[in-house]
């Protein structure tokens, strides 16, 4: 049983290390902006998940009880990673795409990131 748990910890740690490394390497290596977004948000989250699972198995091994607070961090990261990825994708669309360079927005007229009213600037409003 102990050997099995030890093996589990080792497998989780090695997988996590490889995933974390590949995720960050992809950030340097990939050519396209949106591809670069893909590598860290998927791979690194999986890497951290592996470390946390290894830590849970390790606590069973050394202390004899299952500690569940690693699950909190895993849950939090898995919930927030898509949101950050979405925001960074919006930043990329905002900075490097125009209304014409994007594909058709489907049932909406334009993409929401570019749906900004051409109102008066702040300086003009404060004058009035």
């Amino acid at each position, binding site marked *: 049983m102990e050997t099995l748990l030890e093996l589990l910890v080792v497998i989780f740690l090695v997988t996590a290390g490889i995933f974390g490394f590949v995720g960050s390497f992809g950030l340097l290596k990939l050519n396209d902006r949106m591809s670069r977004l893909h590598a860290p948000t998927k791979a690194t989250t999986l890497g951290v998940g592996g470390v946390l699972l290894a830590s849970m198995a390790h*606590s069973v091994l050394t202390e004899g009880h299952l500690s569940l607070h690693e699950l909190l961090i895993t849950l939090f990261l898995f919930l927030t990673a898509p949101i950050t990825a979405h925001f960074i994708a919006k930043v990329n669309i905002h900075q490097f795409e125009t209304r014409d360079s994007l594909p058709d927005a489907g049932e909406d007229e334009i993409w929401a990131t570019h749906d900004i009213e051409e109102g008066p600037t702040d300086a003009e409003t404060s004058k009035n």
Partner: protein
Amino acid sequence: MIAYAVTFAFTCFGAALLMNFWKVATSKDLGDRILALDTMFINAIAVMVLYGLAIGTEMYFEAAMIIAMLGFISTVAYARFVLRGNIIE
């Protein structure tokens, strides 16, 4: 056996952190910089949990939790500032 695996994981995440830092320092692209900083936060969480595992203490989980929250909030705030020029409207 676990000691070797921990060393391997430390090496991987250390190299990952260095690569992220390189990207933060040299990239001219704002979206990439935000992304690299966010990845750095995530890798830092992994290193902290690994350190806790290596020296056998549970003290570092709270720190990792707080770093996870701060990383998320700072990334969203930065991205939102770029998008809208304002964080809380």
